[in-house]
């Protein structure tokens, strides 16, 4: 095994072009488990923690540009206001030790259906910026997940950053696991209300081969809120609307039975989480009269 420690992004991309089978390592919280257990024996291990651009976040054209190597601990500490859904999801990940090392870029590249960043990024309409020596491109996050632990990157590409427009309304994240720390989700749900464009964003985790949105639920709720004038009045949300939204979210999932939970349980959990997340988000929206929309 070779070990490479590029200090610039150009150097990293050149190495990836020359060695498409090289395995990048950021926080190592997925990669090192694989190496320790002998499941992963890359010919080249490429440490990305010295590439400074990846460890930074900035505001670019009104969006947060989150470097692929920013840890969950920093998302929580520094970006709670700009990326509330992702920060909430980050708080549920692993343990303090894992959050100090694990990165959003690593979560994306692993593309596990259970990855906690995904539902939050889906709900917030994030884009993933990937790059290679050939240039860079932006992939809308729903198109990034192509199968179980598969993503839309070509062999010579690496993830540069995630772009997320800061919220115009409340966001929520809900996760079911067997305890409060160190659990892979049994099912998870992310929600974003976008009052500026009268839209709703959703993300489902651990309940389909890939993380996915619930488009019918999004459309139903957006139409309901617009049709009844609720975006403007901020009046109480009818319980039946939240309940129907929950059902439609569950309809979008296609879970399996596995050691963590049954498909039936996951569907039920999703409908309950979606209904609750919406209730919490709506309560936030009603009290947040500061923002004119």
């Amino acid at each position, binding site marked *: 095994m070779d070990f490479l420690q590029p200090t610039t992004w150009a150097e990293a991309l050149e190495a990836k072009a020359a060695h498409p089978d090289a395995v990048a390592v950021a926080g190592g*919280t997925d990669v*090192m488990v694989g190496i320790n257990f002998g499941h992963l024996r890359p010919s080249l291990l490429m440490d990305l923690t010295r590439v400074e651009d990846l460890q930074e976040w900035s505001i670019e054209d009104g969006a947060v540009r989150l470097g692929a190597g920013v840890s969950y601990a920093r998302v929580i500490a520094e970006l709670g206001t700009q990326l509330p859904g992702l920060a909430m999801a980050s708080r549920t990940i*692993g343990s303090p030790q*894992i959050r100090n*090392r694990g990165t959003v870029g690593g979560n994306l590249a692993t593309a596990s259906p259970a990855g906690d960043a995904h539902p939050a990024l889906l709900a917030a309409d994030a884009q993933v910026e990937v790059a290679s020596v050939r240039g860079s491109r932006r992939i809308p996050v729903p198109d990034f997940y192509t199968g179980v632990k598969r993503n839309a990157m070509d062999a010579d590409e690496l993830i540069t950053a995630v772009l997320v427009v800061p919220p115009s309304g409340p966001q929520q994240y809900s996760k079911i696991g067997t305890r409060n720390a160190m659990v892979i989700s049994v099912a998870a749900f992310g929600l974003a209300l976008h009052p500026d464009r009268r839209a709703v964003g959703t993300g489902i985790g651990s309940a389909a081969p890939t993380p996915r949105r619930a488009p019918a639920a999004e459309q139903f709720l957006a139409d309901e809120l617009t049709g009844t004038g609720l975006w403007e009045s901020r009046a109480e949300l009818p319980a039946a609307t939240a309940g129907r939204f929950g059902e439609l979210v569950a309809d979008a999932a296609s879970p399996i039975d596995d050691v963590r939970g049954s498909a039936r349980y996951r569907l039920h959990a999703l409908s309950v989480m979606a209904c609750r997340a919406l209730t919490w988000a709506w309560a936030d929206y009603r009290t947040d009269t500061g923002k004119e929309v």
Partner: protein
Amino acid sequence: MRLICTVNGTQQQVDDVWEGESLLYVLRERMGLPGSKNACEQGECGSCTVLLDGLPVCACLVAAGQAEARQVETVEGMADGGALDPVQQAFLDAGAVQCGFCTPGLLVSTRDLLQRSGRPSDAETREALAGNLCRCTGYEKILDAVRLAADRLAQSGTGGHR
């Protein structure tokens, strides 16, 4: 490959490190620092917790080369000669150590917690130590030890200074 990093304030150099090796392996098997324990090698138990550039991490998940030129602090660096760190003393006095396998990781995590927030609430403590598993104590004595250490550090004015 060669690895040079600072461990407990002393520069260390080791050769013939395998590229896929973890920092935990390097510490235990190459540097003669077996204080950090190896129990799971998958980030679940926290018994390998060390500070890497001041942050608690699982040494089993840090690739050796990622520690190049970094600062590593392990449980071996806590006692000052024969004098135990107040956190270590509190764990002994509170009876928070049974088999002791989880203890080094808990000491490193607790020391970090108390340096960040001098008097953590029990909820904060549980959150901060959620990545450190103990199969023996049932955690109550560990919580006692954290409170005892926090009290003593507050009295001596050495807690929460970071």
